[in-house]
């Protein structure tokens, strides 16, 4: 477990803009046409403080595993995006603390469990319950330790062909494929709620002065209701998790076009961040893109 402590014990969050270093074209890194027994998912991540802000309240965590062999596991992973709020650095502390809490809990409870005997018994808590309690634990931690702070949090656990998402706030998870782009999370914002009820048009919602008002977030009270759902991820599609600094700034169609148009998920992520900054970059931007290649 000490390697986990090494990961999660870190006090300093990584510099958000380290990704700005010029990336190598991943194609130059591959070792030629190696024979692989099965398809593997690939990921990209990128983050930017944005144009208008001077500090970063977004936090992200990514862990991806591949395994091969006769009884090899399918790919598995954990992806977390959080977008903090609150003055006096409370927002960035809340998002970092929440991501660390959720990553710790879920790595231990779900991912490490995959390596154990597959003849496991029914006492193992369901994945959805584990995710829900991980977010509740993060909520407890923020309520106790970061007064005045809060954060959105979207955590995705990939097991086999299924992604299970725990979600609070208005960061989003999208499933993107050639024929369809859809958000699989529901924003817990007042304006989105009004839009769902037909009280606002999407255009009115996008320009509404209260579009940043959330009705559910981590750190806003002892009781937190977490949305948890499981979705199949078909081969050939992408899973994107991002903060509103991305989806609130560039339209879904542009997100889709950039994602599908890039040669690699890492390049796509950087393109997405560039586009959001080019559109004004009013907020911190975080994107995690998971590609499930068709062939």
């Amino acid at each position, binding site marked *: 477990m000490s390697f986990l402590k090494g990961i999660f014990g870190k006090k300093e969050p990584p510099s958000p803009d380290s990704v700005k270093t010029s990336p190598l074209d991943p194609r130059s890194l591959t070792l030629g046409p190696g024979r692989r027994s099965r398809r593997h998912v690939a990921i990209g991540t990128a983050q930017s403080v944005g144009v208008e802000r001077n500090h970063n309240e977004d936090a992200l965590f990514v862990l991806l595993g591949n395994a091969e062999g006769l009884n090899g596991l399918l790919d598995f992973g954990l992806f977390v995006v959080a*977008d903090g709020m609150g003055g006096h650095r409370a927002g960035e502390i809340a998002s970092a603390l929440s991501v660390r809490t959720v990553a710790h809990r879920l790595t231990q409870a779900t991912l490490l469990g*995959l390596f154990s005997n597959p003849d496991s*018994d*029914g*006492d193992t808590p*369901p994945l*959805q319950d584990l995710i829900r309690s991980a977010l509740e634990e993060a909520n407890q931690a923020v309520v106790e330790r970061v007064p005045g702070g809060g954060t959105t949090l979207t955590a995705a656990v990939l097991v086999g062909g299924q992604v299970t998402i725990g979600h609070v706030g208005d960061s989003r998870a999208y499933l993107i494929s050639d024929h369809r782009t859809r958000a699989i999370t529901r924003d817990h914002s007042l304006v989105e709620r*009004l839009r769902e009820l037909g009280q606002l048009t999407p255009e009115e919602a996008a320009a509404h002065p209260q579009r*940043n008002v959330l009705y559910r977030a981590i750190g806003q009270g002892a009781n937190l209701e977490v949305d948890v759902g*499981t979705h199949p991820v078909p081969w050939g599609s992408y899973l994107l998790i991002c903060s509103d600094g991305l989806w609130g700034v560039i339209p879904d169609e542009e997100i889709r076009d950039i994602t599908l148009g890039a040669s690699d998920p890492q390049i796509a992520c950087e393109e997405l961040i560039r586009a959001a900054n080019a559109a004004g970059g009013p907020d911190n931007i975080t994107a995690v893109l998971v590609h499930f290649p068709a062939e």
Partner: protein
Amino acid sequence: MRRTTRALGGTQGTTGQLGQLQPGVTLQDRYLILGILGSGGMSSVYKGRDLHFPNVTKLVAVKEMINMAADPTMYEMVVRNFEREADLLATLAHAAIPRIYDYFTHESSSYLVMEFIEGKDLEAILRETADFIPEEQVLSWAFQLCDVLSYLHNHQPQPVVFRDMKPSNVMIDQHGQVRLIDFGIARIFQPGQKGTMIGTEGYSPPEQYRGEASPAGDIYAMGATLHHLLTRRDPRAEPPFSFSERPVRQVNPKVSPELEAVIEDALSYDPKDRFPSAEAFKKALLTSARQTGLLSSAKTASTVQPKSDVQELWSFECEDEIRGAPLVHRGSVMVGCYDNNLYALDAKTGRFQWKYATEGGIPTRPAASDSLIYIGSEDRRMHAVTAERGELIWVYYTEGPIRSSPIIYEGHLFFGSDDAHLHVVNMASGQKAWRAEASGAIRSSPLVAEERVYFGAETGDFYCIGFRGEQKWRRKLKRSVTSSPIMVDGLIYVGSMDWTLYALESEFGSIIWRFRMGRPTISTPCFAEGKIFTGCADGHIYAIDARTSHEMWRFQTEHQVTSSPIVFEDSVYCGSVDGSMYCLDMRSGRLRWQFRTAGPITGTATIANNTLYFGSTDHRLYALLT
């Protein structure tokens, strides 16, 4: 990030940095501050004493609002607006509205001096009661609230909109009378910056977020207040405008359906769908109270009688109970019976065609290829007979009774046996292809998908095996798995005798979610429109969201539900041990019709050509026109 979320209990919040008035301070040489009553946002309310009455203690409530406007013009405008509103309030005369005695502005604050009310607000009352507040009590407050709203909305020359109806703004004074304590005057002082809420989240109507304040909005907020009082569920802790997702009676079944319906109307999203006036609201409340006998003893029954307009096409009597499911094939309906026979009947008329005798009861569903019918029996054998005449083609022997229905996949039959094996048999020859051992009897019908076979055993083990019989994974559940698994989009759904419906990830067998019911389940789930339907020995038929495990609805029958639901078009069909076949609206779980037989129904129905076929332990096979 300039973001806000609402905080609960705003009235308890501190305004420390703004500095509240300390006891002992005197305002205008007249109002002695005795203590603070509450504060929130930019305003505080103090208990004070009017020193113009030196010989008696005349108590007043002093509301202080801080003017945050930095710009002198804005500051002046806020003060003018305040004075205009205060003048208006001072003209109101109603028993439920506190009197305004005075107002003034001093430096950066404006003050309103009002009647002091001895009593408790409804939020405090809710907090201090442990159980639900009785419907009668809530109704009596509701009538008074309607009266005062009616007074305000009919005010001349212009209607007055209260804007901020919520439990903490409704006082119950020492005489038990309702008093509205906080007119929305404080909103004048709220800076219009990004992220600030208007009104109180949870109680305010949707249109208020577009800046519209109207009498219809007060009706909504009053509906929200009544909903909170009756359910004890604080709307500030729920998604905005989500009252319809938690009907009053779902939380508090003691409330009458009539009152629930009235509150639902008041809470309509569209103002046009609400009561047109507070008078109309009151009238509806009165009507509901009369219907439920709270106002008069004349109690009118209003239970909905289930329609039974379903038409029996035919029924056919066998010599013993039918516990298996029928199969419709080439115009015939085939069903196994505990009289040991497999029957073939004309699907349209119910006319007997042939029967084939096994040597044991038949609890399974037949399977069919083109010309052959396959049936497993408690005589330990799988029988293949011709569809035409029921003539025996081959028999395959297992070492235990067969209670698992055969599944056809790529020229083979897959089925379990009480001999603790999964058998895979060539359909044409009746020869064994392979078999796989389990830890106990297999009564669940296997699921065959993507070169894998999934099935449960009576020991509680749930298996995934490959097409060479090798085990991929096994998950131990707490009790028997008699229910047969289904797979939708890579998730496997199966019930267990441990009172639980499971969703398992098909590659690893990880438990994605579980849904706990009130008793064991052996019912095989069924999927439609994102929902999983299943029956349970607790007597319910459930609809559960397939991705989140949220219960969408449940329908209570009068006995155990061991049969499995099926879905056709937008209806769910499921039998119960209470003897009835139920047809429910798939989306709402509402009863469409109920068809009674003379014995428990334990088998599953099948539907073909708009005809529903099912057997009953009253020995009959029924065909109903749907």
